Structures are given as structure tokens and as C-alpha cells.
């Protein structure tokens, strides 16, 4: 089913859709090319799949192309990804050569003559080496926290990225010093996606039945990869402290660690910390379990994202969109989504998380009001419609130049 702008109107209101259409009228027919590295899986492909038709409906002649690479190329760019996030990585000269070759091959194949080119993440970044007189403004969209990259890697990637006319980052904290405008665009969630759409009570009940989750007590939920930075063991300790005062269950949801040795270790630590407590449920769900996650977030009384280090952490907005007060670690993008004490609580310790769990479970009215404010904030700030408006304004800005105010 094709989703259109008007489908979002009941969700975000006519004013936001009017803004999109009004700005789009000034951008009719502008050719825009997005290039990323995968057509399926991952947050970037997920958002582009929905974003491209909406950009087109707004008037932009938007296209989306996917880089073609081999297994060696993707192994190298996986190292880039880790290295940009600060892990010490060594990439051999031959691998770097191959990376440049794959980009050169793709440059010959792709139509790089758009007015605005948005190149996502490091995999296709070297396409910039093949810009020609017919290609317009090149913008690099970095979806990663690259504030403290591996130095040898940045010595290679830095000059490539510096060749762009501008870049886009999710947070100011994630940026690197670069000689061009660095725009800030938060990522977004799609309220019509399976993971976020409204569910009927029977759909929620059916999922809880399937997952064999008793409804005798309210439950506290964390949905996250089993990764030490998400502190799932800390969540168990916090729940244990809180549940002495307010009886509740704990549901920890994450993926199966099929190709991640550290993930398997963390799952073992989580199971050890949970022991045989019947009130703790550790669920390993496949990446396709969007409906299940949606239902769990809607059924939860309180949602946690107790990360000690985080990228943007869009699972926070997912839960907030479902009207849940979220208790989040004060790190990364969580601090933008949770206005402390207003749309949720920011915490710095296990004790802090435990205290806030108790508060929210014992004051359902307060939790409800906080959840309503959380949903309103996501509607204004973290839905795909705001993201779309950012992209339209960006296209307008790069066409017009860099004034403080651009009045059309």
C-alpha cells in the first residue's frame, strides 16, 4: 500500500502537512539523489523507503540509488563504521584501495548529475571523487556518532568528507571539525510503520499471549540490543530495587546474538543476573518482530532505556510516541528526547532508575500526563514529517545560499 502525505494529516494535523506542501511548491522538479549502501535492513534504508515517495509527492524529483559492493568491501566499511565510533581499527592499504575502486565503479554506473546529492554514511562517501560539472551540491549525511573516531581511519576518511559542500549530523555532539556547513537533523520514526502504528487491544493481547506474558502485574520494559552500553544488567538491578516497593514484572527484549560474540556474552550475564526469577522475562526476538515490539511498548507501564552510551536512541521516541514515560540514561540523543521531569526522566545510576520506576508505577496519573507530553514532543520533533520538512528546507537553503534568513 502506498502511503501518502494525507495519511499523516490525522496524526500531525493539517498545519504540518500544509507547511510541507507550501515549501514543496518552491522546489518543484528539483532533482535530488540519495545514495546509501543497502536497500533493506537498517534504519537508513527504512527511512529512505518512506521518505523518497513523500519527497516526490512534495514536488522534489527524488531518486534513491544503492551502492553495489562485494563482501570484502562491506567488511572494510564495517571497520569504518566501528572506527568512526571510536573502536581501534586497522584497515590495510589494499582494503582502502578496494574501497576507492568500488566507489569508482559505482560512480560510473550512477546518475550523479542531480542538483542535490545526499550521500549516506561512509560506504558511498568516496563517490565525491567523481563529481563532475553537471552535479550540483554534494552533502554527506552521517548517521553515526563520529566525535572520537580512530585516528588512522579519520586521516583517510576526513579529507574525503571535507570535499563535500556540506554535511548533516544527528546531534552536535557527533560532529567533527570540517570546513563546511554542518547541518543538524534529528532522525525520526514513522508513525505508520508496523513498529509504531496504532494497535487494537485484541492485537496487543494476542502478542502478549503468544509471548506467554502474564497480565497479573504491570511490567517495566527495555527494548535494546544485548550490549553492555545498554546496561541490561543495570536494568535488572534497578527493577529488583524498585519491585521490593511496587510489585511489577521486568521484560527485557533484544535480538538473538547470531553473529555477535559479545552479544552472546551479555545475554549470558543477563540470564545469570535474572536467575530463576519468574518475574523477569528475557525475550530474544528476530529483527522482523516489529509488531511484537509495538505491542510490548504499548502494554508496558514504564519503558526504560538505561544506556550508559548511546547514539541517538530512537527506541526512546518509539515508546514516547505510544504515550509512555521513558526513564533514560543521560547520554547521547536520549537527552534531546527526554526533557527531564517533563517528558520522562533522565537518570545517572541504577538507584536513580529504581527510584523513578517506583515513582511512575505508584503515580499512574503523573505517568499518564508525562506520557501525553512525551507523545506531543515526538509529534512535533521526532516524526518523519518533521524530517521531511528539514530536508525540504535544506534543499532550499543550499539552492539559495547561506543567509541568516531566507525569505522566498
Amino acid at each position, binding site marked *: 500500500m502506498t502511503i501518502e502525505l494525507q495519511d499523516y494529516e490525522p496524526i500531525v494535523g493539517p498545519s504540518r502537512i*500544509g507547511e510541507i506542501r507550501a515549501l514543496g511548491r518552491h522546489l518543484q522538479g528539483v532533482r535530488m539523489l540519495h545514495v546509501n549502501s543497502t536497500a533493506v535492513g537498517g534504519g537508513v534504508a527504512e527511512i529512505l523507503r518512506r521518505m523518497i515517495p513523500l519527497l516526490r509527492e512534495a514536488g522534489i524529483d527524488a531518486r534513491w540509488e544503492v551502492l553495489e559492493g562485494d563482501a570484502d568491501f562491506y567488511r572494510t566499511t564495517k571497520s569504518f563504521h566501528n572506527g568512526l565510533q571510536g573502536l581501534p581499527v586497522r584497515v590495510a592499504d589494499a582494503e582502502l584501495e578496494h574501497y576507492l575502486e568500488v566507489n569508482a565503479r559505482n560512480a560510473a554506473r550512477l546518475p550523479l548529475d542531480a542538483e542535490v546529492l545526499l550521500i549516506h554514511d561512509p560506504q558511498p562517501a568516496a563517490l565525491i571523487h567523481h563529481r563532475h560539472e553537471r552535479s550540483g551540491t554534494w552533502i554527506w549525511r552521517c548517521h553515526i556518532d563520529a566525535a572520537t573516531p580512530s585516528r588512522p581511519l579519520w586521516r583517510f576518511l576526513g579529507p574525503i568528507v571535507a570535499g563535500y559542500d556540506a554535511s548533516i549530523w544527528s546531534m552536535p555532539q557527533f560532529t567533527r571539525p570540517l570546513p563546511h556547513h554542518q*547541518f543538524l537533523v534529528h532522525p525520526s520514526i514513522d508513525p505508520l510503520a508496523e513498529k509504531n502504528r496504532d494497535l487494537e487491544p485484541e492485537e496487543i493481547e494476542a502478542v502478549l499471549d503468544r509471548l506467554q506474558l502474564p497480565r497479573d502485574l504491570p511490567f517495566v520494559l527495555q527494548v535494546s540490543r544485548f550490549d553492555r552500553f545498554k546496561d541490561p544488567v543495570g536494568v535488572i538491578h534497578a527493577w529488583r530495587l524498585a519491585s521490593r516497593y511496587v510489585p511489577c514484572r521486568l521484560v527485557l527484549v533484544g535480538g538473538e546474538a547470531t553473529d555477535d560474540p559479545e552479544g552472546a556474552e551479555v545475554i549470558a550475564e543477563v540470564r545469570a543476573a535474572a536467575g530463576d526469577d519468574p518475574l523477569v522475562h528475557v525475550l530474544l526476538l528476530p529483527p522482523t518482530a516489529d509488531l511484537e515490539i509495538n505491542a510490548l511498548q504499548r502494554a508496558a507501564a514504564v519503558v526504560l532505556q538505561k544506556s550508559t552510551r548511546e547514539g541517538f536512541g530512537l527506541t526512546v521516541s518509539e515508546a514516547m510516541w505510544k504515550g509512555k514515560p521513558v526513564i533514560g540514561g543521560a547520554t547521547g540523543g536520549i*537527552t534531546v528526547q527526554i*526533557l*527531564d521531569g517533563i517528558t520522562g526522566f533522565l537518570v545517572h545510576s541504577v538507584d536513580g532508575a529504581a527510584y523513578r520506576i517506583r515513582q511512575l508505577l505508584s503515580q499512574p496519573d503523573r505517568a499518564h500526563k508525562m506520557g501525553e507530553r512525551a507523545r506531543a514532543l515526538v509529534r512535533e520533533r521526532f516524526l518523519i514529517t518533521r524530517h521531511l520538512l528539514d530536508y525540504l528546507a535544506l534543499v532550499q537553503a543550499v539552492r539559495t545560499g547561506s543567509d541568516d534568513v*531566507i525569505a*522566498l
Partner: protein
Amino acid sequence: MTVHPFVLYDAHALRMATGRNAANLRELLTALREVDAAVLRHHLFRFPLDPAYDFSAFGHEFAYWAEAGLQDAVLAERLGNFDPYDNPESEALRAALLEIVEDHLMASHHVPWARPGSELYFQRSMLVAYPTGVEATDLPGLRDAVAQASRGAIYYHFFEARTRLDVRSDDFSAWIEGSLGLHDLAAAIRRIDFPALRIEDVRDAVAQLLTEAAA
């Protein structure tokens, strides 16, 4: 007499990183001396477009950060009472902010720090303003336009206009006075004490005055 229509614009701010942040009051002071005027203008004038504005006791981001980041209530109050619209010329803004922060720092026994995660990241922004297609040629038409205007539209015509127009006015009262000759109504709209109000509250206050005048 031909009345030029009031053209309702919408506006969307594109934020840009500067690569600079402050974790304590001394770093804020140094940055206030050194950053581009566009950075000062962003934090002083574009804060109403930030969701945190709705929950802030203060009208600009430096005061908000003093309270929420540095947790320094006295500094927050002093900065909060500073009205950047009083003289929006860039170097006057810088001088006024420096005066408050230097004075406070000299009187402090310690330098307040923000907790990790609560640093102030200096930014600048471009405001893209575009006609919505809605135009008004009389008071009821303007009232209807205002009542349905988005946050961006109210920001552009009411808040941003005060830094754009030579006179201390917003676009609504300027048009009401210039095109309709309704001086008292224009003065009443200009008197709205907006730094204390949410954008929606400003919209409702203007719409209320227009409704009463059109009745």
C-alpha cells in the same frame, strides 16, 4: 485605497553545529566573547522554535541553560530578565551578555559546571521562510489566518519580525497600522509581553484581540 494583502509566511529553522561547546560558566564566558554574532542570535532569538522553550521559565537559551544545565538559579534569573529584543544589534547583545556573566562569575565562589550530557552546544541557524498561500485583506481574514497559523508562522511574524523590522513591531501590528490604519489595535498587539509566552499562547492572544476588534 488599495490594501496590500497580508501574506502569511511559514518558517522552518535549519540548525548548524559550530563544533564548540561549554561545560561550565568560564567556557560560556569565553565563547560569548568569541563566537559569531549569528550564534548569539540563534540562542537568543530562535529558542521559541525549540520544544524546550515551552517548558522553560525563560525566553532565551542562555538563561534556560543556566538553569537546566548549570543549575545556577541566580544567573538564570539575571539572564532571563535580559531582553534581547530591547536592542537586537549584535554587538550590543554580546556586550550585555558579557556584562551579566562576567559580573556573576566575579561574585561566585566557585565556577558552576554542567553535568556530563548537559553541556551547551553552540549552534547557528538559517531560517527558511516561505509563503503559505494564505492572504488576508481585512481584519476577519487576518483573524482566520492567525487562528490557523503554525508555530513557524507565528514565530516568523511575531518573534522574528522584531529583529527584522526597523521599528519595534511585529508583522501583524505593522500591517494593521499601515494598511488598515487601526492604531489602537496595533498598539494592543505590540503590548503583548511575549517573552513569557509559548508560541501557541501568543497566537491565541493575537487572535483574541483580532476577534474582539472584528466583532
